[in-house]
């Protein structure tokens, strides 16, 4: 579904991503881990062109994202993204947050969009919050709304950029549970995370990035028990 070839990203002279190549299959859940500043988030943001790659290619369902002729806007409608800091629309109610993009970007009828939105809110356990404004929600609730907002576009692929890093510890689980359900429903997911438990339990594959290089990839069981590189071993020793 996704093919990344020799992806490079530079900010000025700073090489953030170096020659990253990988493939992600439909329905696969991939966790990207690595130390801070290793380029995990930048890699993720390249997948929906929030960052423009300096060189290399990303192909999603046959569309080359680096080709200027590719309709990025339409592509993004099929790629949901969840941010560390939620980025809900503060001036819209929870329900409007969910229905806004389907109605305005995809042309879905209001009634249909609202039905779908309520169904999603039910799924993330927030049906009673549909007319609340984001500022009245807890961090965990905000993130669940953000996930529901992304799902409202009925994406084929979901990107998560450290979705639990900004949450109070007791709210991490409620968000991870929603993500687990989503993974089990067959959604293709790419998750940048520091939650090793989640990565080990839910991911089909781990990508380990360090200094912008894809140092290692493999099944969670292998990666966590016997990392191939010294750098990965050192990283795991420090955090586990």
């Amino acid at each position, binding site marked *: 579904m996704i093919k990344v070839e020799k992806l490079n990203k530079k900010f000025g002279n700073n090489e953030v991503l170096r020659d990253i190549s990988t493939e992600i299959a439909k329905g696969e859940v991939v966790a990207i881990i690595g130390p801070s500043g290793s380029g995990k988030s930048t890699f993720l943001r390249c997948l929906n062109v*929030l960052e423009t790659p300096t060189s290399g290619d990303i192909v999603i369902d046959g569309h080359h994202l680096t080709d200027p002729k590719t309709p990025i806007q339409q592509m993004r*409608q099929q790629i949901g*993204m969840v941010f560390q*800091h939620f980025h809900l*629309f*503060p001036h819209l109610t929870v329900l409007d947050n969910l229905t806004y993009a389907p109605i305005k970007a995809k042309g879905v009828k209001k009634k249909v969009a609202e039905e779908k939105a309520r169904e999603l809110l039910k799924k993330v356990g927030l049906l009673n919050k549909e007319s609340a*404004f*984001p500022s009245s929600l807890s961090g965990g609730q905000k993130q669940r709304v953000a996930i529901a907002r992304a799902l409202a576009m009925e994406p084929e692929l979901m990107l998560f950029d450290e979705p639990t890093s900004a949450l109070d510890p007791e709210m991490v689980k409620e968000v991870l549970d929603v993500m687990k359900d989503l993974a089990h429903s067959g959604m293709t997911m790419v998750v940048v995370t520091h939650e090793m438990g989640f990565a080990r339990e839910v991911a089909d594959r781990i990508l380990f990035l360090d200094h912008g290089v894809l140092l290692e990839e493999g099944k969670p069981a292998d990666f966590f028990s016997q990392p191939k590189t010294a750098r990965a071993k050192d990283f795991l020793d420090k955090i586990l």
Partner: protein
Amino acid sequence: MNLDFGQITPYIPFMIEGIWVTLKFVFVSLIFGFALGTILALFKISHIKPLNWFAIFYTSIFRGTPLILQLMIIYFAIPQLTGYDISPFLSAILAFGLNSAAYISEIIRAGIQAVDKGQTEAAMALGVPYQQMMKDIILPQAMKNILPALMNEVITLTKESALVSTIGYLDLMRRAQVVGADIYRNFEPLLFVGFIYWLMVVGLSMIGRMIERRLKVSD
């Protein structure tokens, strides 16, 4: 000291009428200035360089020269150039609208840039087109940042509007002068319209605070 407000009593309706005249052109100028200011603000944050340059140049001209000069140029110089006999009302709207657009564009630009970048990214990630995003997501949030500064601009504009008395437009200020010339007493009519200006500004401030409170609903 021999103040005698009794003498201006017959002229009070004449002066009160000036409130409407002043408010009318301040209001129209403001709408004009706000619309043009929004466009200029969008030019300023645009990635298209010539639009940037135009907006910056525009602002520098209209902020860099006296408003009264701009008014005089429009009222006295344009007819000389074009032969079109421009009315005081139209000149006033043009001068104040064009001038306030420069100030308002700066206010709006700052307001837009103060909106969290994550909002743009969230809208982009959802595949929302740029114009939709600006209209529905960014500008409404920018408005909240903008409102206090914008209210300030409205108040300034209301007071500065007295400048149009110099081109013979019968606003509140001009009416005070007319009455003063009529009864050979200036203090009373000037004090009277001064009081009215103050009331208008107090009223505007109150409306501003009311709108601000209503916009705070989502906080």
